[in-house]
């Protein structure tokens, strides 16, 4: 399904470029203008057009010529608005072909200028930054310098952030499933008093948990969890050094993310599960299934499907929100960025780099989760019998 969609888009693009070509004059004029703008930018040291200045001049005037030609074509279009295709010389067969190939040339020239100025410009900055022995003055160079010098720090930071978010979300999913179940179990006539007691206590606990966790900031939770864990272990007679081995800031951070995300995921799951039609439960119970069997076999598989978008969102949120764990000293992306800012006194540049990393991580997570949810939505069972299709089409008639 995905493939055919991509193919369709590709075919449309090809059709637009080769046959349709309705907006050739307008669209390539914009491209030509962008090319001209690039050619007016100062060239970097790595510019490959610098030695062949004559060629660049030729390209420049080709773009200008195209703009004049396009202006003329657009004038006739304005003048002959209603019967442009019949009357305008620009819409006749030989000229249309010329226009098409000219537009390709314009696009290529603009692309070459883009590479010469923008791509080679960044590459040149990067080369300067990597070669520098102290932080350069320019913003882009400074950012690239820190990115290069701090690559090991950023790598550990990103890895820790991803680990916290991925493991935290997975742990939270299972805890949330448990908590949502506790929240949803209702007293059944068949239950004995002990089961009834546990159901009441469980549901109350789930509600209280959700209220407390969602009502307090994760930064505060992290500080409480880390220090409380530390205090408890001190009470057992361990030394601070031993405790740091067992109760590391990473473990405390992971516990915080998991417990925090559990509360939100529980609400997402509950919403998904509650949106399953009550008739599904009634049918399962009428066959004799217990409340637990009904949840496990009928309600959860459908409810989790409804909840997938919300659950995916939790991973993205955890990637971003794990940044507050730097307060307890978890060595994740934000912690490393602050360390870099402390070394070089270039706050804006460092945090811009951090922002770009977070953006890349969340975009990647969103893309992968979308792929996954599409995959899960695909029909589980391939129909084997032709009679099904026959019956369905007969039904429609």
């Amino acid at each position: 399904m995905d493939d055919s969609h991509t193919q369709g888009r590709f075919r449309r693009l090809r059709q637009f470029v080769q046959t349709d070509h309705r907006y050739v004059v307008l669209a390539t004029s914009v491209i030509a203008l962008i090319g001209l703008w690039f050619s007016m930018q100062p060239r970097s040291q790595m510019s490959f057009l610098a030695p062949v200045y004559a060629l660049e001049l030729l390209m420049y005037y080709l773009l200008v010529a195209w703009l004049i030609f396009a202006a003329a074509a657009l004038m006739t279009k304005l003048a002959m608005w209603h019967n442009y295709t019949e009357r305008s010389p620009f819409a006749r067969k030989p000229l249309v072909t010329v226009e098409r190939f000219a537009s390709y040339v314009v696009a290529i020239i603009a692309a070459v200028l883009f590479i010469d100025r923008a791509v080679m410009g960044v590459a040149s900055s990067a080369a300067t930054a990597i070669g520098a022995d102290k932080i350069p003055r320019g913003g882009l160079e400074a950012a690239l310098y820190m990115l290069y010098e701090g690559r090991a720090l950023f790598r550990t930071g990103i890895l820790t952030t991803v680990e916290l978010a991925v493991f935290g979300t997975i742990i939270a999913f299972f805890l949330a499933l448990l908590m949502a179940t506790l929240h949803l179990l209702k007293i059944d006539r068949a239950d004995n008093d002990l089961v009834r007691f546990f159901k009441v206590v469980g549901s109350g606990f789930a509600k209280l948990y959700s209220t407390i966790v969602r009502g307090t900031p994760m930064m505060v939770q992290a500080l409480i969890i880390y220090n409380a864990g530390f205090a408890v272990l001190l009470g057992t007679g361990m030394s601070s050094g031993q405790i740091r081995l067992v109760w590391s800031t990473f473990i405390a951070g992971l516990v915080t993310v998991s417990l925090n995300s559990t509360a939100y995921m529980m609400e997402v799951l509950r919403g998904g599960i509650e949106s399953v039609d009550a008739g599904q439960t009634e049918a399962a119970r009428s066959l004799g299934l217990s409340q637990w069997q009904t949840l496990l076999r009928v309600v959860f598989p459908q409810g989790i499907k409804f909840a997938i978008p919300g659950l995916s969102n939790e991973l993205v949120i955890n990637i971003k929100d794990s940044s507050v764990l730097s307060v307890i000293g978890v060595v994740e992306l934000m912690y490393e960025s602050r360390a870099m800012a402390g070394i070089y006194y270039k706050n804006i540049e460092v945090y811009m780099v951090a922002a770009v990393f977070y953006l890349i991580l969340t975009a990647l997570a969103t893309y992968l989760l979308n792929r996954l949810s599409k995959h899960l939505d695909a029909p589980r069972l391939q129909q084997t019998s032709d009679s099904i299709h026959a019956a369905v089409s007969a039904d429609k008639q």
Partner: protein
Amino acid sequence: MTINTQTIRESDTAENPLVRVEGLRKCFGNHEVLKNINLTINRGEVVTIIGASGSGKSTLLRCINLLETPDSGHVWFHGSDLAAEHVDVNSLRQNIGMVFQSFNLFNNMNVLGNCTLAPVLLKKATKAEAEETALKRLDEVGLKDFAGAAVSTLSGGQKQRVAIARALCMEPELMLFDEPTSALDPEIVGEVLEIMHRLAEQGMTMVVVTHEMDFAKNVSDKVVFMDEGIIAEEGHPKDMFTHPQHERTRAFLSRYLEDTGVG
């Protein structure tokens, strides 16, 4: 408390009714939906419950397998009171099949999965045994070829036939039908009614809430007319449709009687 159905079946004497409802009351908030209902259902009997919307027909049916919990009264089934606290409703329900107005097929399974879920979980049948039974039941409702089909590809009539097959796979002693044809297009009501008719002829004990007066008149052994939470009149369909005793029954049946020229 687990009930061994086998021993109960043997100990039950034939003259005992299969279900006996005694003094059943049910309120939704302040509204009393069922007021002191008494009803017996004998083995092999087909009982249809008719009445206007809101008269409590469906609630009564849903009290029999405890989808609704009665406020007071008894529902005797197999010597135990379904309405009592702590009774093992789950194992008793295995003997009571139910067919819903809106089919309620499990959307996360295909047709065969719908029919085998409960037998595999509850009757400890192997998957192969359960599938064999399920295919037999699906064949009886004419949908054997659809065993692998996703539920969403079926028409309403087909869904309801699968729902009947699903209930029959548990080999119940009693089948409850809650307006099984009300959600169907008029032209496909027949295919479902035909299966119900055949089931009645095979001796299945059935309680049917319906607006299909022809079914009530021709197939059932007893017709129960409900009005505002009470059983206003019950009796043999012939008497009921020709000489309704009560004014209310007459009023309710009047349009049907006029339409068909009976009475």
